[in-house]
């Protein structure tokens, strides 16, 4: 229910922001550097008298936090009943379909990324998981796992969160300029079928969930970095 309320609030903010978007986009396009761009974003927001960006970012980061928590629970739930002998070697996250996306690997790198890039990365990752989540959702129903119902419900919840977060980030990125709106295309090539035998299916499932866990953590981290950057006026949060 909290998710729905958050979704509602986010939707309301989107409506308000859309009105300002067209007017301010032209002005925003003149800015180039990330820092100036960010200040411009704040300025535009002030002019628009819309919902402040830091508030939007706060809501977005909360949504991403919830997503990551769900994915962590999913992996734990999968491991609790996964027969250890049947488990294959830990899937190498380098094989994730999103590994092609260049993301910062440490803190220094992450802090050097511009806000627009961070936003772009987050949005790209989020977009990359729309299809896999659908595959996971369909596979969870017939998953040879004792707690497949719980897993299935969590995956559905994940989908909802992902959808609403994507909408919110669309609005946010619209405030931050065109570079923020660029999304890297990361297609999922795993197909709709996870496998034939039980072990294969479970392994594939596990593999996807681990990839999801990481990517959701990335999204969450990026948004929280953005939140602290936008909350210069509220240092108590960061």
């Amino acid at each position, binding site marked *: 229910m909290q998710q729905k309320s958050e979704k509602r609030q986010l939707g309301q903010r989107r409506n308000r922001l859309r009105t300002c978007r067209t007017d301010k986009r032209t002005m925003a396009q003149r800015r180039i550097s990330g820092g100036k761009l960010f200040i411009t974003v704040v300025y535009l927001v002030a002019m628009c008298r819309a919902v402040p960006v830091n508030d939007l970012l706060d809501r977005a980061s909360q949504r991403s936090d919830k997503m990551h*928590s769900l994915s962590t629970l999913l992996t734990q739930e999968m491991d609790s009943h996964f027969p250890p002998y049947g488990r294959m070697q*830990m899937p190498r996250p380098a094989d994730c379909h999103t590994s092609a996306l260049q993301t910062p*690997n*440490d803190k220094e790198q*992450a802090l050097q990324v511009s806000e627009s890039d961070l936003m772009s990365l987050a949005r790209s990752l989020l977009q990359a998981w729309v299809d896999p989540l659908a595959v996971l959702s369909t596979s969870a129903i017939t998953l040879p796992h004792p707690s497949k119902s719980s897993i299935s419900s969590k995956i559905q919840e994940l989908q909802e969160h992902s959808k609403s977060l994507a909408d919110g980030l669309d609005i946010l990125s619209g405030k931050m300029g065109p570079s923020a709106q660029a999304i890297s295309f990361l297609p999922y090539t795993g197909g709709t079928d996870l496998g034939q035998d039980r072990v294969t299916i479970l392994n594939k499932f596990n593999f996807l969930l681990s990839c999801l866990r*990481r990517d959701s*953590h990335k999204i969450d981290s990026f948004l929280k970095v953005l939140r602290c950057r936008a909350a210069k006026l509220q240092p*108590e949060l960061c």
Partner: protein
Amino acid sequence: MKKVGEVVLLWLLILFIHNAAGEGYSPPGKPTNISCRSPEKETFTCWWKPGSDGGLPTTYALYYRKEGSQRVFECPDYKTAGKNSCFFSKNVTFVWVNYNITVVATNSRGRAFSDPVDIDVVYIVKPNPPEEVVVNVTEDKDWPFLQVSWKPPKMADTRSGWITLFYEVRLKLENKNKWEEVSAGQRKTLQIYSLRSGGTYEVQVRCKPDHGFWSEWSPSSRVKVPEYFPQERSMWILIVVFAAFILVIFIWMVYMNFHSVKRYLLPPVPGPKIKGIDKQFLKSGKSEDIFSSLVVSDFPPTTSNYEDFLVQYLEVYVPEERELIMDEGKDLQDDSFKTENSTCDNDSGRGSCDSHTLLTDKGGGDKEDGQQSDQEGSQAEADTKSQEEALEEELLACSHENLQSSNVSNEKEKVKSWPSLFSPLPQYSLSPVNRPNPPKTGQQHCLSDSLFTPNSMPSYFTQPGPSTRKGFRSNYWECSFDHKQSHPLHPQSAAHEHLQAQNDLNTAHVDYMGAPLDVHVLNVRPSEYVEVQRVSVEDGVLLHPVSPSQEDSRTLSHQTEDYSRVRVVNNDNGLLLLQRDAIEEEKSMCPYQEDVVSRASITPTLQNSATGINIALPILDEMAASGYIDTATMFGLPTH
């Protein structure tokens, strides 16, 4: 042969010794429990648990491999984190990268490999405890509270948002074992209330990243809460004591004034009221005002003229007993006359002026309101009372003597009494009349409207000749009332009782002047009408009580007509009786005037009122709810 056996034995010995020498050493055991933690998501440390060392010095080495690469690295730092640990600095720490870590134990006998462990730095964050925990005791209107503040651990970079920390505070009393935990969110300060006065508290803080592990608790910070008195309790005690005190006082007051409170809440039921008479006004005790309200103002002669009136009365000779009675009546009249300005009541259709009222009023002047405005009244009161009894006896004697016709039964007599006015009267009404002042008594007789039924007798009421001087003493119908004895002799105690239909007895003394006066003393009961049976030629009027039945039937119809009034006294022996109609014109029916009329001359004071036969009938009407003593009815004229 022997040489070969010795060589074999030697070989066996050498082997055996050789073997025995190498038994204490073995390859090391496998290291276990590899755990890694990162305090700030920038570095991390791994610890392992070594296995048996196999008796030989064993070295441990940690090798790791990053995902997507087969290159093996060894731990760069074995010392920073202590023994059996490996510290990964920033340079070698990468986030969102899986590390495959393996620990190898090596000794001279061999080596042992631990189970590989995959970790991702971002999942193993366990920050350091918060630092600079400061606890202050702050006073807030005598209610102290703890102000706890802290700083995030140094290494954690929360400013940039790289790490988001949530904090938690716990505290307990120093000598207790139970901790109280309070979540503080992302804030760095916290207020704690509801402290025990004089207690010493220990406060600890810890933190947790958004996705990670709780830190260790910070070192305890001790603080002592000063003594403070919980005023709340003392205030309540004061309030309770005060309320109890007030309650006790209230109960005592109610107890002391119980009766008055009870009377206030449940007032006594008042009795029937006299129509047209203001009870309170009567209670006021001003007899003058009261009389004035009842009688036309111009009627009542002033006390100054009282003596004159008395003088003007015709003296009628009567036998001793009657004289007594008459005297009594006169006394009564005096009293009533004084105290009663007017017996007229406008409300009453019948002649409300009544000599009886005067009589009663006189006698019961103090009855009305306890006021005795009339000296004579007060004076005569005592007399009247004594006289009253005598009068009563007289009446009884008379009645029995003279009463002949059954019609003169007392039942006919209907007395409507003005309670207040007549109340005194009964006392003395029954007593034989003593006539201290014949004129006086005669004067007091206020004969109200009607005396005789027109049909029953002519309107003349002749007085006995010889005693004409005395005037028409016959103002009083002296009736012996059998029943009245019981009533009127009781002094009216309460003023309000007067207004009720008391059995005030108005003795009407009919003085039949002269010996031959055929005085019919009617034994009339209070509520009886007296009907004039016949008029004796000379000087008598025969009155007979009207039967109640007759009375009831005819009273209403005839009352208006039946009253007659003595209009004028032609001579010492005659009285002119007016019809009712004429009477009604005149309001005042005061006996005074009538008494005056009894004289040969009509005094000016009697102008306004028709003079009537001052027949004061002590008529008490028990049933007179209105409390009137209707003179008309008293005389039983109409029907009656």
